[in-house]
Protein backbone atom coordinates (compact mmCIF):
# COMPACT_ATOMS: atom_id res chain seq x y z
CA UNK A 1 0.00 0.00 0.00
CA UNK A 2 1.31 3.38 -0.90
CA UNK A 3 0.89 5.86 1.97
CA UNK A 4 0.85 8.79 -0.43
CA UNK A 5 -1.80 7.49 -2.76
CA UNK A 6 -3.60 4.78 -0.86
CA UNK A 7 -3.06 2.52 -3.86
CA UNK A 8 -1.52 -0.90 -3.86
CA UNK A 9 1.83 -0.85 -5.61
CA UNK A 10 4.24 -3.74 -5.82
CA UNK A 11 7.08 -1.32 -6.41
CA UNK A 12 6.09 1.17 -3.75
CA UNK A 13 9.06 3.22 -2.58
CA UNK A 14 8.77 2.13 1.02
CA UNK A 15 9.43 -1.46 -0.01
CA UNK A 16 13.06 -0.61 -0.53
CA UNK A 17 13.87 1.48 2.47
CA UNK A 18 16.22 -0.96 4.09
CA UNK A 19 18.43 -1.64 1.08
CA UNK A 20 21.13 0.70 2.28
CA UNK A 21 21.64 1.15 6.00
CA UNK A 22 23.38 4.41 5.41
CA UNK A 23 20.40 5.81 3.62
CA UNK A 24 17.68 4.28 5.71
CA UNK A 25 15.70 5.54 8.64
CA UNK A 26 18.11 3.91 11.08
CA UNK A 27 20.82 6.34 10.08
CA UNK A 28 20.46 8.77 12.91
CA UNK A 29 23.55 10.37 14.31
CA UNK A 30 23.34 8.13 17.33
CA UNK A 31 22.86 4.85 15.50
CA UNK A 32 25.61 5.53 13.01
CA UNK A 33 28.02 6.55 15.74
CA UNK A 34 29.27 2.96 15.85
CA UNK A 35 32.91 2.36 14.92
CA UNK A 36 33.79 3.67 11.53
CA UNK A 37 37.03 4.80 9.94
CA UNK A 38 37.37 8.45 10.91
CA UNK A 39 37.73 10.93 8.09
CA UNK A 40 40.81 13.06 8.11
CA UNK A 41 40.44 16.82 8.19
CA UNK A 42 40.72 17.21 4.44
CA UNK A 43 38.07 14.59 3.75
CA UNK A 44 35.75 16.19 6.28
CA UNK A 45 36.22 19.56 4.66
CA UNK A 46 35.49 18.09 1.25
CA UNK A 47 32.38 16.37 2.53
CA UNK A 48 31.12 19.55 4.18
CA UNK A 49 31.77 21.52 1.00
CA UNK A 50 29.82 18.96 -1.04
CA UNK A 51 26.96 19.06 1.44
CA UNK A 52 26.79 22.83 1.22
CA UNK A 53 26.80 22.76 -2.55
CA UNK A 54 24.00 20.20 -2.57
CA UNK A 55 21.64 22.09 -0.26
CA UNK A 56 19.75 23.91 -3.03
CA UNK A 57 19.12 20.70 -4.94
CA UNK A 58 18.18 18.88 -1.77
CA UNK A 59 15.68 21.59 -0.86
CA UNK A 60 14.34 21.59 -4.40
CA UNK A 61 13.83 17.85 -4.42
CA UNK A 62 12.15 17.97 -1.02
CA UNK A 63 9.92 20.85 -2.07
CA UNK A 64 8.79 19.07 -5.19
CA UNK A 65 8.25 15.85 -3.31
CA UNK A 66 6.14 17.16 -0.43
CA UNK A 67 4.84 20.43 -1.87
CA UNK A 68 5.25 22.38 1.31
CA UNK A 69 8.11 24.73 2.00
CA UNK A 70 8.36 24.26 5.75
CA UNK A 71 8.07 20.51 5.60
CA UNK A 72 10.57 20.44 2.74
CA UNK A 73 13.11 22.36 4.78
CA UNK A 74 12.58 20.02 7.70
CA UNK A 75 13.13 17.05 5.40
CA UNK A 76 16.23 18.60 3.89
CA UNK A 77 17.70 19.38 7.30
CA UNK A 78 17.01 15.88 8.52
CA UNK A 79 18.63 14.51 5.40
CA UNK A 80 21.69 16.66 5.96
CA UNK A 81 22.02 15.39 9.51
CA UNK A 82 21.61 11.79 8.39
CA UNK A 83 24.10 12.27 5.58
CA UNK A 84 26.64 13.71 7.97
CA UNK A 85 26.11 10.85 10.37
CA UNK A 86 26.45 8.32 7.57
CA UNK A 87 29.33 10.06 5.82
CA UNK A 88 31.61 7.06 6.17
CA UNK A 89 29.28 5.07 3.94
CA UNK A 90 29.51 7.52 1.06
CA UNK A 91 31.78 6.27 -1.67
CA UNK A 92 33.84 9.18 -3.04
CA UNK A 93 33.47 9.50 -6.76
CA UNK A 94 29.89 8.31 -6.84
CA UNK A 95 26.96 10.62 -7.46
CA UNK A 96 26.78 12.70 -4.30
CA UNK A 97 23.43 14.33 -5.01
CA UNK A 98 21.86 10.98 -5.81
CA UNK A 99 23.14 9.66 -2.49
CA UNK A 100 21.57 12.61 -0.68
CA UNK A 101 18.33 12.29 -2.62
CA UNK A 102 18.10 8.68 -1.56
CA UNK A 103 18.53 9.58 2.09
CA UNK A 104 15.88 12.28 1.83
CA UNK A 105 13.30 10.23 -0.03
CA UNK A 106 13.74 7.29 2.31
CA UNK A 107 13.15 9.63 5.22
CA UNK A 108 10.13 11.17 3.50
CA UNK A 109 8.46 7.86 2.75
CA UNK A 110 9.34 6.55 6.18
CA UNK A 111 7.55 9.50 7.73
CA UNK A 112 4.58 8.82 5.52
CA UNK A 113 4.47 5.20 6.53
CA UNK A 114 4.57 6.12 10.21
CA UNK A 115 2.26 9.05 10.45
CA UNK A 116 0.08 9.03 7.33
CA UNK A 117 -0.12 12.73 7.85
CA UNK A 118 1.37 15.39 5.65
CA UNK A 119 1.20 19.10 5.54
CA UNK A 120 -1.24 20.25 2.89
CA UNK A 121 0.05 21.54 -0.38
CA UNK A 122 0.81 25.19 0.23
CA UNK A 123 -0.69 26.46 -2.97
CA UNK A 124 -1.20 30.05 -1.89
CA UNK A 125 2.42 30.36 -0.85
CA UNK A 126 3.57 28.61 -3.98
CA UNK A 127 1.62 31.02 -6.13
CA UNK A 128 3.11 34.02 -4.38
CA UNK A 129 6.60 32.68 -4.90
CA UNK A 130 6.07 31.68 -8.48
CA UNK A 131 3.83 34.42 -9.77
CA UNK A 132 6.67 36.57 -11.06
CA UNK A 133 8.19 33.63 -12.90
CA UNK A 134 5.06 32.41 -14.58
CA UNK A 135 4.69 32.60 -18.34
CA UNK A 136 8.01 34.33 -18.89
CA UNK A 137 8.72 33.84 -22.56
CA UNK A 138 7.85 30.17 -22.91
CA UNK A 139 4.12 30.18 -22.29
CA UNK A 140 4.74 27.65 -19.53
CA UNK A 141 3.23 28.58 -16.20
CA UNK A 142 5.39 26.83 -13.65
CA UNK A 143 2.70 27.41 -11.04
CA UNK A 144 0.56 25.10 -13.17
CA UNK A 145 3.45 22.65 -13.28
CA UNK A 146 3.68 22.74 -9.52
CA UNK A 147 -0.04 22.23 -9.08
CA UNK A 148 -0.05 19.45 -11.64
CA UNK A 149 2.88 17.78 -9.94
CA UNK A 150 0.92 17.77 -6.68
CA UNK A 151 -1.88 15.81 -8.30
CA UNK A 152 0.39 12.91 -9.24
CA UNK A 153 0.97 9.79 -7.16
CA UNK A 154 4.08 10.20 -5.04
CA UNK A 155 6.10 7.62 -6.96
CA UNK A 156 5.43 9.37 -10.27
CA UNK A 157 6.20 12.75 -8.74
CA UNK A 158 9.45 11.41 -7.39
CA UNK A 159 10.45 9.89 -10.73
CA UNK A 160 9.74 13.12 -12.59
CA UNK A 161 11.66 15.19 -10.08
CA UNK A 162 14.69 12.94 -10.28
CA UNK A 163 14.82 12.31 -14.01
CA UNK A 164 13.10 15.20 -15.75
CA UNK A 165 13.67 18.03 -13.26
CA UNK A 166 17.02 17.38 -11.61
CA UNK A 167 18.66 15.55 -14.48
CA UNK A 168 19.56 12.20 -12.97
CA UNK A 169 19.84 9.33 -15.39
CA UNK A 170 17.21 6.61 -15.25
CA UNK A 171 19.83 4.29 -13.76
CA UNK A 172 20.71 6.80 -11.05
CA UNK A 173 17.04 7.41 -10.31
CA UNK A 174 16.45 3.66 -10.01
CA UNK A 175 19.23 3.49 -7.47
CA UNK A 176 17.76 6.41 -5.52
CA UNK A 177 14.26 4.96 -5.61
CA UNK A 178 15.37 1.41 -4.96
CA UNK A 179 13.46 -0.05 -7.87
CA UNK A 180 14.07 -1.44 -11.33
CA UNK A 181 15.04 0.78 -14.25
CA UNK A 182 11.91 -0.26 -16.09
CA UNK A 183 9.82 0.84 -13.13
CA UNK A 184 11.42 4.27 -13.22
CA UNK A 185 10.78 4.57 -16.96
CA UNK A 186 7.18 3.56 -16.47
CA UNK A 187 6.64 6.05 -13.67
CA UNK A 188 8.28 8.84 -15.65
CA UNK A 189 6.18 8.05 -18.68
CA UNK A 190 2.90 7.92 -16.79
CA UNK A 191 3.79 10.99 -14.78
CA UNK A 192 4.72 12.99 -17.85
CA UNK A 193 1.50 12.05 -19.59
CA UNK A 194 -0.59 12.99 -16.58
CA UNK A 195 1.25 16.25 -16.07
CA UNK A 196 0.94 17.11 -19.76
CA UNK A 197 -2.80 16.50 -19.55
CA UNK A 198 -3.04 18.70 -16.48
CA UNK A 199 -1.03 21.48 -18.10
CA UNK A 200 -3.14 21.32 -21.26
CA UNK A 201 -6.26 21.64 -19.17
CA UNK A 202 -4.82 24.51 -17.22
CA UNK A 203 -3.95 26.50 -20.33
CA UNK A 204 -7.45 25.95 -21.71
CA UNK A 205 -8.98 27.50 -18.63
CA UNK A 206 -8.65 31.24 -19.29
CA UNK A 207 -10.54 32.52 -16.26
CA UNK A 208 -9.08 30.19 -13.67
CA UNK A 209 -9.58 31.67 -10.24
CA UNK A 210 -6.62 32.31 -8.03
CA UNK A 211 -6.66 30.10 -4.95
CA UNK A 212 -6.04 33.22 -2.89
CA UNK A 213 -9.14 34.90 -4.27
Amino acid sequence: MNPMTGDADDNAPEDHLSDDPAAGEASSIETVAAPRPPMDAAALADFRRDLLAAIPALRGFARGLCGNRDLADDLAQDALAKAWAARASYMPGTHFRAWLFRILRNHYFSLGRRAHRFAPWDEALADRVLVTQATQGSGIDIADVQRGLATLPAEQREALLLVSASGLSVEEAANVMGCAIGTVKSRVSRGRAALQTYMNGATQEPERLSPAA
Partner: protein
Amino acid sequence: MRQDDDMDARRGGAVARQQISEPVGSGGDPVTTGLQRLFASFEDEPIPEDFLRLLDEIEARGAEVVDLAPAKPEQARDIS
Protein backbone atom coordinates in the same frame (compact mmCIF):
# COMPACT_ATOMS: atom_id res chain seq x y z
CA MET B 1 37.60 28.51 2.66
CA ARG B 2 34.46 27.81 4.67
CA GLN B 3 33.22 31.34 4.10
CA ASP B 4 33.63 30.83 0.37
CA ASP B 5 31.69 27.59 0.59
CA ASP B 6 28.92 29.24 2.54
CA MET B 7 28.71 32.06 0.02
CA ASP B 8 28.41 29.54 -2.80
CA ALA B 9 25.62 27.81 -0.94
CA ARG B 10 23.76 31.06 -0.39
CA ARG B 11 23.87 31.80 -4.09
CA GLY B 12 21.54 28.92 -4.65
CA GLY B 13 21.67 26.19 -7.21
CA ALA B 14 23.51 27.85 -10.05
CA VAL B 15 26.64 25.77 -9.58
CA ALA B 16 24.69 22.58 -9.07
CA ARG B 17 22.64 23.16 -12.20
CA GLN B 18 25.78 23.47 -14.29
CA GLN B 19 26.42 19.84 -13.46
CA ILE B 20 22.99 18.68 -14.57
CA SER B 21 23.15 16.58 -17.67
CA GLU B 22 20.45 16.56 -20.30
CA PRO B 23 17.54 14.41 -19.14
CA VAL B 24 17.19 11.09 -20.88
CA GLY B 25 14.71 11.09 -23.72
CA SER B 26 13.22 14.50 -23.08
CA GLY B 27 14.31 17.12 -25.51
CA GLY B 28 12.94 20.40 -24.30
CA ASP B 29 9.24 19.59 -24.33
CA PRO B 30 6.90 21.75 -22.23
CA VAL B 31 6.66 19.22 -19.41
CA THR B 32 10.42 18.86 -19.05
CA THR B 33 10.98 22.58 -19.44
CA GLY B 34 8.33 23.31 -16.86
CA LEU B 35 9.73 20.79 -14.40
CA GLN B 36 13.26 22.09 -14.82
CA ARG B 37 12.12 25.67 -14.28
CA LEU B 38 10.11 24.68 -11.26
CA PHE B 39 13.07 22.85 -9.78
CA ALA B 40 15.35 25.79 -10.57
CA SER B 41 12.94 28.19 -8.87
CA PHE B 42 13.11 26.06 -5.74
CA GLU B 43 16.88 25.89 -5.91
CA ASP B 44 17.23 29.62 -6.36
CA GLU B 45 15.42 30.48 -3.16
CA PRO B 46 17.87 31.81 -0.57
CA ILE B 47 19.06 29.18 1.85
CA PRO B 48 17.75 29.89 5.35
CA GLU B 49 20.37 30.70 7.93
CA ASP B 50 19.32 27.76 10.06
CA PHE B 51 20.63 25.40 7.38
CA LEU B 52 24.11 26.75 7.79
CA ARG B 53 23.83 26.74 11.58
CA LEU B 54 22.63 23.16 11.41
CA LEU B 55 25.64 22.17 9.37
CA ASP B 56 27.95 23.70 11.97
CA GLU B 57 26.06 21.94 14.75
CA ILE B 58 26.04 18.51 13.19
CA GLU B 59 29.67 18.93 12.21
CA ALA B 60 30.50 19.60 15.86
CA ARG B 61 28.40 16.62 16.99
CA GLY B 62 29.99 14.45 14.33
CA ALA B 63 33.45 15.46 15.45
CA GLU B 64 32.55 14.46 18.99
CA VAL B 65 31.37 11.07 17.78
CA VAL B 66 34.59 10.45 15.88
CA ASP B 67 36.65 11.47 18.89
CA LEU B 68 34.69 9.39 21.36
CA ALA B 69 34.33 6.18 19.39
CA PRO B 70 37.91 4.88 19.84
CA ALA B 71 37.68 5.42 23.59
CA LYS B 72 34.90 2.89 24.13
CA PRO B 73 36.94 -0.33 23.84
CA GLU B 74 39.52 1.06 26.26
CA GLN B 75 36.80 1.85 28.76
CA ALA B 76 35.51 -1.70 28.45
CA ARG B 77 38.96 -3.10 29.15
CA ASP B 78 39.36 -0.85 32.20
CA ILE B 79 36.12 -2.13 33.66
CA SER B 80 37.09 -5.75 33.16
